[in-house]
């Protein structure tokens, strides 16, 4: 079955996309022309990082680009993620930068 996924950008913008069965969030946002960033499309590069705010989402391939701490903090890789319920996800290019603060600053 499909699920309603609500996307929230940090600038306040919001959009809702219907993610079909066996479809990744990235495939759905591309189908809807929402312009969520992505890169490798196999869970290694973390360009598509979002943060799960509400709902159930599973990684259907190993999310190699995330460390265990990132996963605990709710970060998800949308290119390998499928919803299992309706969800709210924080998205946009800025979210990825949360993963790696400047180590010297």
């Amino acid at each position, binding site marked *: 079955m499909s699920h309603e996924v609500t996307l929230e950008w940090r600038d306040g913008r919001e959009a809702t996309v219907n993610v079909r069965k066996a479809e990744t969030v990235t495939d759905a946002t591309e189908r809807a022309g929402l312009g969520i960033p992505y890169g490798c*499309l196999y869970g*290694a590069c973390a360009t598509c990082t979002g943060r799960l705010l509400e709902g159930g989402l599973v990684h259907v391939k190993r999310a190699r680009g995330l460390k265990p701490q990132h996963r605990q903090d709710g970060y998800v890789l949308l290119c390998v993620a499928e919803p299992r319920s309706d969800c709210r996800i924080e998205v946009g290019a800025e979210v990825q930068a949360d993963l790696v603060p400047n180590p*010297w600053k």
Partner: protein
Amino acid sequence: MSTDERNQSTDAHHHEHHTVKGPGYPTPAAMRTESEREKTAFVMGVRVGMDVDKPDFVGVVDVDPDSETYSELINTVEMPNKGDELHHFGWNTCSSSCHAEGLVRDHLIVPGQRSSRIHIIDTSDPRDPTIEKVIEPEEVFEQDLSAPHTVHCVPGGKIVISMLGNANGELPGGFLQLDQDDFSIDGHWEVDRGDMEMNYDYWYQPRHGVMLSTEWAAPETYYPGFDLDDVEAGKYGNSIHVWDWETKEHQQTLTFGEEGLIPLEIRMPHNPEETEGYVGAALSSNILRFWEAEDGRWEWEKVIDVADREHPDWDMPVPGLVTDILLSLDDQYMFFSNWLHGDVRMYDISDTGNPRLVDQCWVGGNFAERQSIGGHDVRGAPQMLQLSRDGRRLYWTTSLFSSWDNQFYPEIGEKGSVMMKADVYPEEGRMELDEEFVVDFGDAPGGPARAHEIRWPGGDCTSDVWQ
């Protein structure tokens, strides 16, 4: 004969001491003196990791001061997909095939660092490049390789690309070989990779049958950004690898340890007689020199150490982060960038083991006083370098890699990066920022982009190797 006019090939320029004409120049000096001034530049434009819903592009920048569109981005060829992260790129053929009949330098091989997709761009008209062929990621993954980086054409009708990971973005990487005629995948270049696991850049000196490759990290490690814990866990490189160019076997590993953390760009002199070179260790911010000893083994030493600097807003001293290094075609000068500091340095390397700092250009970054040029903010700091063939103009862009940009210079992720230039006076051993030249990729058609590697039609200091 201009080198960027339509259908340029070097059989158009004089090649008097050879009967067979080819796509390059017989010697580095011929390239330096017989080619004309660059008129256009190919510059990679990257949208990955930005809220710009557009693909990356191959940009064409007008660098002809007599042109009405001087210092403007005059064309952008968008890739068919988003998310590639165009990064480094190279030619179908260069001076290493100077004597091969029938070859023309008219195609660029443009890989996507993140997508592992490889684009073949027809550049017969350097002002209007077109996409000729796309090798999709699946074909690359079939070789259990990913993350294409350095592209060199090699003698024998082949193109070799350093690949940083396996099909899962983990280690080991390897080398992908393409056929020069139809750009199909042959398979791996290497026959035996020995203890080499990490990969990044490579250079080769065919007269001596040697190739040397460097190390970044596994794609899954460096793709998401820079984490010091990964350095402590040994996940970043600290070695370079010596290969037998003929048998394609790994021969020796030079391990630098703390002196050579993250050895990225590697350059050997253009003089094909030379058996030495330099590598920039980005994190250690050192330049290391390597050479072949009398017994045929390779040795190394540190020749330049960029001191960390205290910054009032940073908790820890800031390393220079030497991210690119370049040798002039006459092998007299070395230039390199300190991406976290904000300077480009120029060294006299006529005594190769004792580089002498002759000049430095500060703009952007965390320490330069000058933070804008021609009314444009310098987002980022000097990074990818390209020198004119005659050694008189040094150009650079200011983006490193999307996730690392967003980490250290987040404004690049919002507004794109810039391209700049310095005039170089080799006779006087100095350079001077050209305040009139700036190309702001924040104004790129379709939305801001990160400007990355630069190449001239007709070849340059970092594309061509001599047999």
